[in-house]
């Protein structure tokens, strides 16, 4: 499974408006286009995961992730925050790039962990943060995934 196939243009935004950790999570969740009740539950679950330790892995990248009943299949979203935001990242630096990964409690295809690993690998490519910063639109992000995470 290629990462490119798990994103759609609608699940990508290059202009997050939120300025706090909670608001960032909420804006990310809205990219998945769930119903209101599901959004509320997912927010609580992601927040509880963040309370165990930040998913900001350093170098301006965060990968909020969880399993939740509110999705029927693996769902991903990407968002860029121009200027960055404090996300309590491991390196205490602002986070600019957010990859949201949500999987159902049980998956037949068991893609969650391999995809989480692939996203982390992609994000840790030293050239990727610069390339993400230079994107103009969602299609550019999808092309970058095609190129760098085959």
């Amino acid at each position, binding site marked *: 499974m290629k990462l490119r196939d798990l994103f759609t243009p609608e699940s990508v935004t290059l202009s997050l408006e*939120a300025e706090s950790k*909670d*608001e960032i999570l*909420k*804006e990310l*969740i*809205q990219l998945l286009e769930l*119903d*209101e*009740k*599901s*959004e*509320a*539950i997912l*927010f*609580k*679950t992601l927040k*509880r*995961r963040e*309370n*165990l*330790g*930040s*998913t900001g*892995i350093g170098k301006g990248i965060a*990968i909020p992730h*969880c*399993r*939740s*009943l*509110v999705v*029927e299949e693996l769902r991903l979203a990407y968002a860029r925050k121009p200027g960055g935001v404090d996300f309590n990242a*491991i390196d205490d630096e602002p986070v600019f790039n957010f990859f949201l990964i949500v999987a159902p*409690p*049980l998956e037949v295809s068991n893609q*969650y*962990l391999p995809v*989480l*690993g692939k996203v*982390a690998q992609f994000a840790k490519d030293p050239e990727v943060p610069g390339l993400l910063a230079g994107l103009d639109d969602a299609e550019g992000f999808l092309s970058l995934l095609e190129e760098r995470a085959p």
Partner: protein
Amino acid sequence: MLSTEIEEGSQLMNPELMTLMELQDLRAQHRALSGGESESVEVEQFNIDPTVAAARLEEVIAELEGRLSPPVLKRYRQIAPNRERVVVPVIHGVCYGCFVSIPTATAGDQDVHNQVRTCQSCGSFIYVAS
């Protein structure tokens, strides 16, 4: 604006059903910290201490369990030890715990989000997905 929308979403559902769904997700997080590949990912990629994190989750799970009414808590304790999912979605009228059709009267009930219900076939708590 954004906060209000998501907070309103949490008010649309029966609080006890909401708590059960939270418990479901927290139990999944706890399992992820209890060994295997998912624990390794959390440790290696996110610097999580699995012992500390699991203990913290257990505290939250206990606190949420304390919010359940006695009959719901009793049912929850009957099914939780043996199943990975205590709450299952109902999609297109089918319980995703046992894949048996839910009676139309239940699946189509507009009030279903305001009551805690169980599948008559498998006994799981049910959540009617929108």
